[in-house]
């Protein structure tokens, strides 16, 4: 019996010790004066990029951008992925914050709005520099925190309208279109669809025949588009998709229905395949948030703050939470987006807020 108990006892002792150690380091971090934290040597800075997974081109390009920035300052980026699992994301963050947080810089994609608050509070307590992107609740503001430098997001209404307008233009300003919505309870899906509605108001000749959700998925978009094509037949002149994966699914559906090239398709995100499709004319337009830039800029802002080149208290209020510039990609400019690359000048401490398109309201 004793022998059976021993491993359990060892385990408990170990976990107690680990808990005690974690407690110590957290306390130590809490004692530190955040105002004096801006004096890290560049070589001491630890860069962390965290996204959901590496299995989609967008987030893969994000991490690639982070690597490119890290390389430009002679460091390496720690790449973290949490597989879209909120609990796992929080675990990874608390593990990071339990370590040495003096010169820690994190560029984080929170899984959902509600995941942002614990990350922000943990980082603030530990004095780690944090930039978040895409998701945060409206009432949580970087300006209220010392080391949560910025929150970056994109105006979905604007991108939804941009591609809506591009679609209207390509079908000659009149005709029926169908819309493929994203996951209905996400802000991205709601905003982008609001953008389409704004575009429809201005383009009176364009008629929205039907709108369905395909949950941002390529496979679902294929099925839904095929169904809608049998429902509306030749009345469908254009397909508006709330992201590129669905747009690519719609392209496959058109091919299977023998309507390749007869229906205009637009999407958002500028995933590589969509950019190629725009380049060779099978797709009409997409919108780029520039994932490689997103991966680099969060680390760049944090790096500038950690090394003291940027004082968090001096950053303009409008730059603490902002919409970043996004780019409509059409056949004319697709070539320059075909090779995602970063411009080192974008990450210079004087330029890190160059792409601010407007404050987040």
């Amino acid at each position, binding site marked *: 019996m004793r022998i059976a108990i021993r491993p359990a006892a060892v385990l408990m002792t170990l976990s107690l010790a680990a808990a005690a150690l974690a407690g110590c380091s957290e306390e130590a971090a809490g004692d530190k004066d955040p105002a004096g934290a801006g004096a890290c040597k560049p070589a001491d800075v630890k860069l962390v990029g965290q996204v959901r997974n590496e299995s989609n081109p967008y987030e893969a390009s994000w991490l690639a951008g982070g690597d490119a920035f890290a390389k430009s300052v002679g460091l390496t980026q720690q790449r973290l992925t949490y597989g879209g699992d909120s609990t796992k994301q929080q675990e990874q963050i608390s593990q990071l914050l339990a370590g040495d947080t003096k010169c820690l810089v994190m560029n984080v994609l929170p899984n959902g709005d509600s995941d942002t608050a614990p990350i922000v509070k943990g980082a603030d307590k530990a004095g780690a520099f944090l930039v978040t992107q895409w998701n945060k609740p409206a009432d949580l503001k970087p300006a209220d925190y010392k080391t949560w430098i910025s929150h970056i997001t994109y105006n979905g209404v604007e991108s939804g309208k941009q591609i809506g307008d591009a679609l209207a233009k390509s079908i000659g300003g009149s005709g029926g279109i169908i819309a493929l919505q994203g996951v209905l309870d996400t802000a991205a899906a709601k905003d982008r669809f609001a953008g389409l509605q704004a575009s429809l108001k201005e383009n009176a000749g364009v008629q929205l025949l039907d709108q369905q*959700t395909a949950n941002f*998925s390529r*496979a679902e978009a294929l099925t839904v588009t*095929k169904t809608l094509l049998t429902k509306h037949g030749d009345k469908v002149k254009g397909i508006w998709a709330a992201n590129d994966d669905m747009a690519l699914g719609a392209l*496959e559906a058109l091919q299977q229905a023998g309507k390749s090239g007869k229906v205009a398709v637009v999407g958002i995100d500028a995933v590589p395949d969509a950019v190629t499709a725009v380049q060779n004319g099978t797709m009409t337009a997409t919108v780029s948030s520039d994932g490689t830039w997103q991966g680099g800029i969060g680390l760049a802002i944090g790096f500038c703050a950690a090394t003291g080149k940027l004082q968090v208290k001096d950053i303009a209020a409008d730059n603490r939470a902002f919409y970043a510039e996004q780019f409509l990609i059409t056949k004319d400019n697709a070539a320059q987006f075909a090779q995602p690359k970063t411009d080192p000048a974008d990450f210079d401490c004087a330029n890190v807020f160059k792409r601010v398109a407007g404050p987040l309201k």
Partner: protein
Amino acid sequence: MTVTTGVAASRRIIRRGAAFRDAGPPVALVVIFLIFAALSPQFRSIANVQNIVDAAAVLAVVTCGITFVLMMGSIDLSSAGVMGASALTVSLLVANNRNDNDFGLAGIAAAIVLGCAFGFLSGLALVLLKVPSFMATLGVSAIGLGVATLMFAGVQPNISDAMLKSWAIDRFLGLSYLTWIAAACILAGWLIQRYTRLGRYAFAIGGAEEVLTLSGVRVKPYKVAVFTVAGAFYGLAGVMVTSQLGAGLVQAGNGYDFSAITAAVVGGTLLTGGRGGILHSTVGVLLVMVLTNGLVQIGVSPYWQGGVEGLIVVAAVAAAVIPQRRRNQVVK
């Protein structure tokens, strides 16, 4: 010999009540189809019926695999991971934009063999390590997704293999090649279920494993074999999704695990094992596809669709199992 006659005898007893019980799902399918047909002229068009059958192809193949496992009284959640791994494998082995491979059919075979290997792994974990099938297959699914992510390596492989692409586009007698492949799978699945020892034992394991063991049958190899066969079906399904989407996606199998279980259960295959079969599950697949297609065709708002679909599924399953619940309390 005694075993086979024993199973056959118990079957005959079951069959007495079977006509009434098994009629539920097909009747529901016809009723739902007629309701949608009455409400929407586009729904009853030939093109849309072709569309429904084509759209059912992949789910039908996954459900074929999962049905064997369910008949045995186990559960299988590995399809999402296995399909992802198989999708990436096939897209990297046939002509594609990532490398110079062009193995054609051999690449497709390799993806199916990979599916078998994953199924084999699930089976071994179940019988040797005594991991419950729920956890074993969930783990294997995660392994599959991991392998797929490694192969994905940041760049989506797009296939340019003419044959594989044509499976989704070219038609024979109005239906895509993929649909015929699915039909062949259903036929093969039915033959395995009806005429091979593997299929009959799968049934028997689900119905009364103890009796089988006491009769001197070594059950474990058959369990592993069933998971392996299921893996082959998932592997093929991964190939089919790749053909449809023209690209190898890690998420190729997203949602198919639970859709397939839903379809099988709606069709009358019980989660407790020993009842149902390939043909039941096929009816379930068609029911689910008719439902998703019909709700779009009659113009139910997307905000309502998920809820309405769930409601109808629960109602259909409830209607199907009520007679059994009264009969012998098999549904817990």
